């Protein structure tokens, strides 16, 4: 039983990161039906920016004070992710807004490779793994035989908090309403006086900010990052988004947690599970797509 709960906890922490990145995929898809494969790299850029803030911008006296360093690292990561996403949207995707759908998709893959290589070549010692600071206590606590690192608590609480905030924003705010309108029918939305280009940029900004936070979280959890972390994380998050029903905010979160938990439980209960955990994750995806092709919760951002 303890083992089961322990694996559930492991899966939840894993799933929180997947979910946070998946939100960026799902929102952009909900608004412009683009699968932004470069989103994983936005996450990677966030992680590197957070590291740079800590390494180069913070004086030593502040760098070891988690209460000061962590918010600054997070802000730096979000800022860099957002700027990257806005530039990417402006120059890679907007000119292709009315092109056939395959064109922006391939562009997205190109942007993804560009960002990876740019980081590898230009970041000091970028081809190596970079040690990432823990920022908060690297300790753990035990509850009923289950060991939980404090970093994991931070990851899950922050992720869930951000997910709720995003959902509230899309549902309640005026901009959120405009987002939903754009998602439902961009042409009519524009006729109603909504600046759809601006709404699309805002969507990219929101997704990127979340990815930036996820990047820092990944760094803190594993104490290291490298230029390729975006690829696998992006793939898993994309799977999570599809699992939940792409375009659906709650679906991305649900998909993320489900994927993380399936991976953890497969490791425990299936022979050779740790090597095959990705297989089981994708088996779940295939089963869901066979029986519920629209994903677990299928609604567009329109109706959240």
């Amino acid at each position, binding site marked *: 039983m303890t*083992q089961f709960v*322990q*694996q559930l906890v*492991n*899966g939840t*922490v*894993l799933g929180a990161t997947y979910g946070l990145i998946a939100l960026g995929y799902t929102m952009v898809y909900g608004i412009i039906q683009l699968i932004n494969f470069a989103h994983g790299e936005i996450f990677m850029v966030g992680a590197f920016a957070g590291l740079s803030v800590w390494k180069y911008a913070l004086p030593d006296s502040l760098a070891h004070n988690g209460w000061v360093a962590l918010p600054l690292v997070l802000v730096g990561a979000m800022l860099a992710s957002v700027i990257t996403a806005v530039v990417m949207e402006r*120059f890679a995707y907007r*000119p292709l807004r009315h092109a056939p759908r395959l064109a922006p998709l391939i562009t997205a893959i190109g942007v993804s490779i560009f960002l990876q290589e740019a980081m*590898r070549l230009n970041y000091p010692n970028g*081809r*190596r*793994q970079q*040690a990432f600071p823990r920022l908060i206590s*690297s300790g*753990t606590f*035990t509850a009923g035989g289950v*060991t939980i*690192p404090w970093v994991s608590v931070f990851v899950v609480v922050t992720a869930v908090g951000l997910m709720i905030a995003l959902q509230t924003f899309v549902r309640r705010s005026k901009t959120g309403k405009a987002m939903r309108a754009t998602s439902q029918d961009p042409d009519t939305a524009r006729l109603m006086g909504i600046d759809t280009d601006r709404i699309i940029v805002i969507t990219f900004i929101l997704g990127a900010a979340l990815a930036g936070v996820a990047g820092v979280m*990944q760094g803190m*959890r*594993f*104490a*290291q990052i*490298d230029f*390729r*972390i975006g690829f*696998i994380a992006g793939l898993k998050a994309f799977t999570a988004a599809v699992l939940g029903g792409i375009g659906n905010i709650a679906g991305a979160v649900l998909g993320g947690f489900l994927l993380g938990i399936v*991976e*953890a439980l497969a*490791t*425990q209960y299936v022979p*050779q599970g*740790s*090597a095959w*955990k*990705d297989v089981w994750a994708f088996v779940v995806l295939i089963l869901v797509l066979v029986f519920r092709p629209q994903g677990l919760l299928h609604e567009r951002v329109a109706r959240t």
Partner: protein
Amino acid sequence: MLHARARVLRAVAVGAVLALVLAACGSSKKESSGGSSNKIVKIGFIAPISGDLSALGLGMKNSVDLAIKQANAKNKVKGWTIQLAAEDDTAKADVGAQAATKLSSDAAVVGVVGTLNSSVAQQVTPILDTAHIVQISPANTNDTLTRGENFKTSPARPHPNYFRVATLDSLQGAFAADYVYKTAGIKSAATINDKKTYGQGLTEQFTKQFTADGGKITDAETINPGDKDFGAVLSKIKPTNPGMIFYGGEYPEASLISSQAKTAGLKVPLMGGDGIYDKTYISVAGAAGEGDLATSVGAPAESLDTAKQFITDYSAAKYTDAFSAYGALSYDAANIIIDAIAKTIGGKSVTLNDQVRQDIIKAVQATDRQGATGSLKFDAYGDTLSKVLTVYKVESGAWKSVKVGEFGK
């Protein structure tokens, strides 16, 4: 307005393309060779010089580069200038195969130093063999590479062009097991490996010797190279209470497993083979890495009198990357090839044809010299006769050698 915008975009796009082209030209600039009358002979190099394992690969590349520069400066091969043709295999077998194909299509390439990974060598060696290009690996440890699939019962050399200056997994894994059981007094272990040729082979050899010694394997798990989160697999291992974790694989995963194990409350040392013996392991694992163990091939370069000249020369050459675990061995491998080239074509004006390449392979087989890592000689399988191994331990943030010796002695 729209037109103006389109024009601006186009200008930006053209600018970007130009910048890329210029960058490409800039990076492909070759060093000019010394004597212009000299003919060109090339030594190829295949190892990961980008990606996770680049710390090891770059140390190897620089060491080969150093050997070649010294040979050219001393005009070791009369009438010829040696050039380095370095290829990046990104630690992947298919990329390595492409690199090998590229090198074997270049008539000037007569030898190759590499690879780092045994799994890559499995693809690379047959390609180089077809072209009769001698290959010396400073790092491959998998037994099958020199002794074939049935290396335990009926060893047979699959490729006459393949040599290595690294010691075999069967010795390394067993050496590790003996150290752990007899010297460190650890009687139980959980094993994890990454399913690659090297990791799996090493783990099998460790397990065999460890259980033969009387040790108990509490759990055997496998993971995927590239994974970051090992929480689940470590949670599974933890209740089996192993005295240590033996990991067959390389440092990117090993450092994460070590730090995550300690976080999960599994406070036992992690031990690996030469694949985790690198500074990056310590910098990434941080304090969690203290007390972790690794075996590596050869004696520590710093302790050998013969290696001192190499270390001095390497630091004088001011490479940005450390020579790492295989630097001295790579330097030796390159020098063996250089000697063979000098013996075969030095002072002669010949075409580099298959006959010359075959002769170079023969010359390598007959090698008998002192190198940075000690005596260099090959047996009938192409394996080094030196069987020295070292156990290293992480102590206050650095690898310290705790036992140097040969298996069974």
